[in-house]
């Protein structure tokens, strides 16, 4: 079995070839879909649980605490135990809730995050679908999640939920703009929407460094706007536990609540992945111009380690936001978007286009 940790395409190609040898093309594709589905489900669960654990540990360390430390070594199985608890909890049915929408909402939220996961390149060759409009696709499907949140708030027939849902509707739709425009800055620089190609283009330096000031501004705006888009503190107005108790998921319990919970962490992971891919070179090792010796040493670190490391750093920054800042008010949130991020962003695109036209980038 040709297993190469530096290039997974040989491995995936080998699976494809051996399957094609064994069965008809239709069944090959069918089996591949099933395999992929199972792999993603497992990945989703593991990463979700790990992120919950990581968040609890990180915030504990920031707050002079220890964090989970009872279940398993260093409390590693705490989140697993929590998940089991959530699985066994009663699913409370709300009397006057819209039953169909109420049950549908958590699935919409979780499916949206599944969709986005498909286009992310985890390592060289480790890629579910390599769409030529990858970036566009990710942005499009990740905004489906807001439908789930709105439905959850609306169908619970609870006043707190409704306020939370309306807040998140206003918030996500406005911040979608900034996320899109800040990514557009890099698209202008790269000239492609295909994620694998964006990564390839960063072989001799990450876009964060290649794109001068506009790329740095775009990176900061992307971090802020994406934190808002995934409903995390200081932009967690949709949940705002000190104001709305739990916002849109007030009435959910058991595994349906766990879906929302997992989706929140997966969205954080997806956003961090996109940021790592677009701005920090994805799985591409750190290469500096013509320092061949240095570049060679960096190549020895496997790509998925690079990818995981970059994602972890961005996740840490997003967590740092949540555990440091007070929450914004709804009007300030919209002011930040429409009066600060959007004008800066538009100006930033112009600047980047000018840079690209003049050829002043690396």
């Amino acid at each position, binding site marked *: 079995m040709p297993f190469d940790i530096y290039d997974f395409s040989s491995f995936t190609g080998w699976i494809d070839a051996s399957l094609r040898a064994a069965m008809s093309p239709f069944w090959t594709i069918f089996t591949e879909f099933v395999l992929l589905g199972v792999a993603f489900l497992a990945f989703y669960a593991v990463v979700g649980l790990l992120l919950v654990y990581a968040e609890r540990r*990180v915030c504990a*360390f*920031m*707050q*002079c*605490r*220890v964090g989970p*430390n009872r279940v398993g070594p260093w409390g590693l199985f705490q989140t697993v135990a929590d998940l089991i608890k959530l699985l066994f909890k009663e699913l409370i049915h709300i009397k006057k809730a819209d039953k169909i929408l109420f049950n549908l909402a958590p699935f919409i939220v979780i499916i949206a995050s599944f969709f986005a996961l498909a286009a992310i390149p985890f390592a060289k060759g480790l890629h579910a679908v390599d769409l030529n409009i990858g970036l566009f696709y990710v942005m499009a499907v990740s905004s489906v999640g807001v439908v789930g949140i709105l439905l959850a708030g609306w169908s619970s027939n609870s006043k707190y939920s409704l306020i939370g849902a309306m807040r998140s509707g206003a918030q996500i739709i406005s911040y979608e703009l900034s996320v899109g425009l800040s990514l557009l800055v890099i698209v202008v620089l790269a000239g492609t929407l295909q994620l694998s190609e964006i990564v390839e283009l960063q072989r001799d330096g990450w876009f964060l460094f290649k794109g001068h000031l506009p790329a740095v501004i775009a990176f900061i705006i992307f971090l802020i706007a994406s934190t808002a888009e995934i409903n995390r503190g200081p932009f967690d107005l949709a949940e705002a536990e000190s104001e709305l108790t739990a916002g849109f998921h007030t009435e959910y319990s058991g595994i349906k609540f766990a879906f929302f919970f997992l989706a929140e962490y997966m969205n954080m992971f997806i956003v961090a992945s996109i940021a790592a891919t677009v701005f920090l070179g994805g799985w591409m090792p750190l290469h500096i111009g013509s320092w061949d010796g240095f570049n060679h040493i960096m190549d020895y670190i496997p790509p998925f380690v690079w990818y995981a490391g970059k994602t972890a750093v961005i996740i840490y920054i997003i967590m*740092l*936001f949540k*555990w*440091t*800042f007070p929450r914004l008010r709804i009007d300030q949130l919209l002011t930040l978007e429409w009066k*600060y991020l959007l004008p800066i962003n538009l100006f930033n695109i112009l600047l980047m286009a000018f840079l690209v036209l003049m050829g002043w980038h690396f």
Partner: protein
Amino acid sequence: MLFSYIKGIFKGVGTLFTGMGVTTSYFFRPWTKVTQKYPENRKELKMVEAFKGEVTMPHNANNEHSCTGCGICEINCPNGSIELVTMFLVNEDGKKKKAIDKHIYHLGMCSMCGLCVKTCPSNALAFGNEFEHAVFDRTKLTKVLNKEGSTLKKGVE
């Protein structure tokens, strides 16, 4: 106008970074943790001497206490958490003397005000340091403070 707009942005972002600096500095200084791991540190955990955990009646090695059964603690208790069951003993001179049969203490009703300990004329009561009082049955919170077969200390009137 534009200048103050840009200045405002930089100033705001600066304050945000100062805030993040505080949390990050704690993140990288794990020795600043203050958590006490309670059931594990039971052995080292020492309550201070003055800690008001429960009302106790100290007995000496001969199983003697100094409670004369005067009832002052019972009168002074604001919650009625002390009840005295007294009896009359006949001493050597043939005189009848009041003594306690049972000094009943309802821990569940006690609010640790300390009046019984403070007002006791013979210093028979004291605060104990026990703090793990959780029980499954409320009746277990009713305690008899004098031990079985205990007697009054010599010389205490």
